[in-house]
């Protein structure tokens, strides 16, 4: 009889910090201690707190161990699993304040579970509900948490029209970034008659810093299989494709396992639940081109052609994959579907704001304490996400801005930190929900440099089919380089803006239409920073090397020669016990002198 379960995260984050070795050590250790009949070790998907990985949760206590290494395993098994003594040094202790107050006798880690931590308490997990809870490679565990019940309900009790009505009424909007109402999308495909229709799942997650789709696929692949089958029934499609990038090997493997298991159980294939409905699912691997995340380019790629977008209309609902009506949704959108069917449209619509229902998953990254994955109700303020759930900006630095939506998005400056995050509020401030990457920046980040980084990315990833995107983004990048090198003029800023608006209006697909967003947003909120580069030839954050000068303050310099000895290019000269001097024509601005100075005598600016 199993009395305790040890969940070991097998997501990509924890795998890279060594969770595979931890898992193996647990398997070995419980056998050694003769506990293998009583304790079950379960590999799971992502828990979300990647920063603290490898993460291990022990039930029934719900004890949350973080940064567990394989050498810690013997201690956990012997102390916790055998003797019931929690290994306090490994327990994640960032507990919510109200929980601390409840625990009158002070903080007792044995009474604190995962759900008491600030990181988890403020979240509302719908799309991620099974991630880190079930073994993603076991269809039985998925069924145990009501998996495939929604599919059963749909196929035995509901008409396709009823399914679409529930999805429409729920208010679910596309989670890939566009925010188009999912129910309406489905109804378009359903309305078109054809001998063959398709369902496509867009798992070509390409934004730098975004990894929510990967985590869903790795942690709960069956829910995507189930949701796509439901979508097939609702829209009249019998074939589905999951387009996932080859850089996600764990996700691909788990999807393959899920599809095999579903076929074996008759949950995919012919005549599912004896309803007469048949559905088949295929995986297509993308080679990692960003443009393939655009729906028409993605379909072109599935067809075996070079991934280039095509003009719309005709929209995929009319003429999509292989020229047939196609419904294409993002991973996270699909992940919400089974819950909406089971719990009803009203339940889903009760979460969120007036026009943005439900929850949204964000991948927190950049200058933030809790790097990881969070799912919050729409309408949560950015402040709550960054300061509470994210644990704030580390090293006492000041929050400057949050970048959302990756290379297609914009940024939210510190002055708007109380913005309630939903589709419309973000659009209103010239930002974009995007797929959910949320990169936090502090005072050490240069906004011009950030804009240049994303432009570099889009220049690389532009497919080259249309001129505004191919040539326009290149010209923008050149102007940004000019500015960061200190050669910009004020006219350049106007030119940049004009070019940006032109590219937005005239590009063929979403990539070009959104590529100028990072520049437009930074120009809007941080124009002073651009002007500092152009007019004063200064980079206020001290990032742009061409505008940076290191100087030694003569009064503070003791002449210890440490800086001169550490300078890799010999740019510093001076006599022992005499103030030293940096020759800026030789200096490569590496900062080694500043890092090594014991007297704080070197400044940059």
């Amino acid at each position: 009889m199993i009395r305790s379960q040890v969940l070991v995260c097998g997501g990509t984050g924890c795998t890279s910090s060594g969770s595979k070795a931890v898992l193996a050590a647990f398997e070995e250790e419980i056998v050694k201690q003769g506990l293998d009949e009583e304790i079950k070790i379960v590999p799971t998907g992502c828990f979300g707190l990647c920063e603290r990985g490898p993460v291990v949760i022990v039930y029934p206590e719900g004890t949350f161990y973080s940064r567990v290494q394989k050498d810690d395993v013997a201690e956990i098994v012997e102390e916790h699993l055998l003797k019931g003594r929690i290994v306090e040094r490994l327990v994640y202790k960032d507990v919510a304040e109200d929980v601390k107050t409840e625990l009158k006798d002070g903080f007792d880690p044995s009474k604190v579970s995962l759900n008491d931590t600030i990181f988890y308490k403020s979240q509302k997990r719908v799309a991620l509900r099974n991630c880190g809870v079930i073994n993603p490679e076991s269809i039985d565990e998925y069924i145990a948490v009501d998996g495939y019940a929604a599919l059963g309900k749909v196929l035995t009790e509901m008409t396709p029209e009823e399914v679409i009505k529930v999805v429409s009424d729920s208010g679910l909007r596309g989670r890939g970034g566009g925010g188009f109402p999912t129910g309406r999308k489905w109804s378009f495909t359903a309305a078109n008659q054809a001998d063959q229709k398709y369902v496509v799942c867009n798992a070509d997650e390409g934004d730098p810093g975004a990894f929510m789709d990967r985590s869903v696929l790795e942690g709960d692949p069956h829910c995507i299989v189930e949701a796509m089958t439901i979508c097939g029934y609702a829209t009249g499609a019998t074939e589905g494709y999951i387009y996932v990038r080859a850089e996600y090997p764990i996700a691909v493997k788990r999807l393959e396992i899920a599809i095999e298991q579903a076929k074996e159980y008759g949950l995919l294939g012919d005549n599912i639940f004896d309803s007469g409905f048949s559905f088949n699912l295929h995986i297509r691997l993308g080679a990692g081109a960003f443009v393939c995340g655009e729906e028409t380019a993605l379909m072109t790629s599935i067809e075996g052609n070079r991934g280039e977008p095509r003009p719309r209309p005709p929209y995929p609902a009319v003429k999509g994959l292989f020229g047939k009506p196609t419904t294409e949704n993002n991973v996270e959108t699909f992940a919400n579907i089974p819950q909406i069917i089971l719990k009803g449209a009203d339940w889903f619509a009760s979460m969120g704001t007036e026009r943005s229902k439900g929850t949204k998953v964000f991948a927190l990254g950049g200058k933030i304490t809790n790097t990881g994955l969070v799912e919050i109700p729409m309408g949560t303020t950015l402040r709550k996400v960054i300061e509470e759930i994210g644990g704030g900006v580390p090293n006492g630095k000041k929050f400057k801005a949050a970048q959302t939506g990756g290379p297609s998005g914009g940024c939210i400056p510190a002055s708007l930190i109380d913005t309630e995050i939903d589709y419309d509020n973000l659009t209103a401030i010239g930002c974009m929900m995007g797929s959910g990457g949320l990169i936090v920046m502090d005072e050490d980040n240069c906004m011009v440099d950030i804009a240049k980084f994303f432009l570099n990315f889009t220049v690389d990833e532009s497919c080259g089919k249309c001129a505004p995107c191919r040539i326009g983004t290149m010209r923008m990048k050149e102007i940004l380089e000019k500015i960061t090198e200190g050669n910009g003029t004020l006219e350049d800023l106007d030119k940049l803006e004009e070019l940006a608006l032109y590219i937005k209006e005239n590009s063929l697909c979403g990539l070009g239409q959104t590529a100028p967003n990072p520049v437009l947003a930074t120009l809007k909120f941080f124009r002073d920073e651009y002007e500092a580069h152009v007019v004063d030839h200064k980079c206020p954050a001290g990032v742009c090397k061409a505008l940076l000068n290191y100087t030694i303050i003569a009064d503070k310099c003791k002449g210890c020669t440490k800086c001169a000895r550490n300078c890799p290019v010999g740019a510093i000269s001076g006599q022992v016990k005499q103030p030293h001097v940096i020759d800026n024509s030789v200096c490569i601005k590496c900062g080694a002198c500043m890092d090594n100075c014991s007297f704080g005598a070197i400044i940059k600016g």
Partner: protein
Amino acid sequence: MKSLAELAAIREKMKDKVVLREGSGDIRVVVGMATCGIAAGARPVLNAFVEKVNEAGLTDKVTVSQTGCIGVCQFEPVVEVFEAGKEKVTYVKMTAEKAAEVVEKHLKGGEVISEYTITNAIS
């Protein structure tokens, strides 16, 4: 998969295997598993609790877990039963047989077996 009944059967069969992860039930049974507890035979007691709670179908109501030494080593194996809104009950010198009885009478029936409690042992 031809029917909802088949799906329901798998769900029922698997439910016990994941219910542990849903967190605490209303009642918490905590077995002292320090060196003193283990030496006095706490392992079979713990396993008996897990097994009997499952058999009685109480898994969604009762959480069986373990703890370290609570300081009354002469009375080990010690088992504490916590229930929201009620006073803690401490059973002492437990055995697997007594555990089965506690599950049946106390956890299921709501009746404390005062004969096995620490209050009885001291007085």
